[in-house]
């Protein structure tokens, strides 16, 4: 999966957003749950079978705001940046009207999303 497919998030360059997992190798037991919890189309992780460790391979494929891998890790081996910076971005995007415009377009394109 090329990294470019997820290159923009609501008009912001994905590479400018600090949001991806970091693995503490000393805690990772190589169970692989993070690897397969991440969706196949994003596929952020690689795996080192010899050392039984998950590896963050494509950090910029990580879905902004998602930390399901961290949540699934029983060994607390995965960390993410603070959520505060994303909240600030979300606030700005709403204030600017970016989200309202995107919502309008999405609802126009797919009327099945609309209930009375």
């Amino acid at each position, binding site marked *: 999966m090329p990294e470019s497919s997820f290159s923009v998030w609501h008009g912001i360059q994905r590479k400018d957003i600090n949001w991806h997992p970091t693995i503490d190798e000393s805690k990772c037991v190589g*169970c*692989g749950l993070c690897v397969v919890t991440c969706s196949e189309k994003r596929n952020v992780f690689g795996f080192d079978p010899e*050392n039984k460790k998950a590896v963050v391979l494509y950090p910029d494929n990580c879905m902004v705001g998602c930390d*399901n891998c961290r949540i699934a890790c029983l060994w607390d081996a995965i960390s993410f940046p603070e959520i505060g910076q994303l909240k600030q971005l*979300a*606030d700005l995007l*709403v204030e600017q009207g970016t*989200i309202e415009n995107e919502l309008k377009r*999405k609802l126009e394109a797919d009327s099945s999303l609309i209930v*009375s």
Partner: protein
Amino acid sequence: MTGGKIWHGVERSKYEWFPIINYDACTGCGLCLLTCGNSVFKWSMSKNIPIVANPGSCVLGCTTCGKLCPENAITFQDDPKKFIGKIVRENKIFPQVRKELDDRLKKYPDHVITEVQEVARK
């Protein structure tokens, strides 16, 4: 089998997990609907607010919409880490995870990392 969604071998429908919207706080910005990759939300045109229309499609333990919500208007049934930890333990999912990992790496061989690559990456 119900033919429903499966989470690492566990039937999704066995567990309750979906966003709960606090409409006193919700401003109807729509970011939750745009963010969700599983079509959990629909939109009420008359009230101009999101509706949790497909709760069973919500990924177990996922709180992405809640984390991004500018008004913190979305909560879930439980702490996600506690919730997932319990499911992982009570269903002994690791043999299934192992199989999924093998399948994933077979399908995407560029995700198999050797020690040499790993050292080079650092």
